[in-house]
């Protein structure tokens, strides 16, 4: 398991390789890449600003991954999330799930991404050309 709440994400290719080597039982690696969208309604987004309670965020993500291991039997997972300023088109978050088969990988991946939005102490301010908005996943 690898978890990172950081200014700069690792290279996605190296994360895939690292995960691939963690077990010979792996038959599927499913991946989610979150990207900064350039619009908010009719407004043009300039950047997103992220901040986190880093230790609690890592602890919560570890708990989420462990629960997915029990629920879907996934082999392992990697989650990295940016902090600081992220501009349009840049990657925000990587979630990678290694599993024996694709089905449990898809299910676990979807659940991990959803739970990160609602359970992990990370905050986001969307800066548009007009204004700034704190985004609340409620």
């Amino acid at each position: 398991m690898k978890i990172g709440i950081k200014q700069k994400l690792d290279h996605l290719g190296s994360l895939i390789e690292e995960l691939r080597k963690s077990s010979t039982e792996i038959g599927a690696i499913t991946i989610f890449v979150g990207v900064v969208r350039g619009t908010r309604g009719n407004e043009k987004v300039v950047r997103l600003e992220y901040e986190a309670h880093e230790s609690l965020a890592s602890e919560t993500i570890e708990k989420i991954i462990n629960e997915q291991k029990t629920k879907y039997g996934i082999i392992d997972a990697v989650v990295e999330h940016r902090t600081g300023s992220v501009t349009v088109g840049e990657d925000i978050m990587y979630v990678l799930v290694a599993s024996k088969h694709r089905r449990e990988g898809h299910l676990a991946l979807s659940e991990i991404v959803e739970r990160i939005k609602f359970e992990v102490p990370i905050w986001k301010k969307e800066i548009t050309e007009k204004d700034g908005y704190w985004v609340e996943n409620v």
Partner: protein
Amino acid sequence: MSENGICKITVKTRYFGKLRELLGVKNETYVIEKGAAVADLLQIYIPNKHLNVSKIWRETLFRTLKGEYLQEKNGTPVLKNYLVIVNGKSAQLKDCLREGDEIAIMPPFGGG
């Protein structure tokens, strides 16, 4: 610590997101009365230190009905969907604070 015969304790606060922006600080230290609860910190100590934004602070954190702040039966206010974490664990407003506690006050999350 004792001041005029009243026992005092020292606690640290951490703010995130819109609360950090509202107060203009990430961390603070408060010397408060021994026996004070989380609710006292949020309702009295923090807004009294930040008088210029105290009204917005209270309106941001606590639920109101027709302009009145809602209260539980025991008199504690009712938080909106904000979280208070003391030393890494979820806390209730009625919980008493202890010397050295670190209190993180968290708006709704917005990751991803």
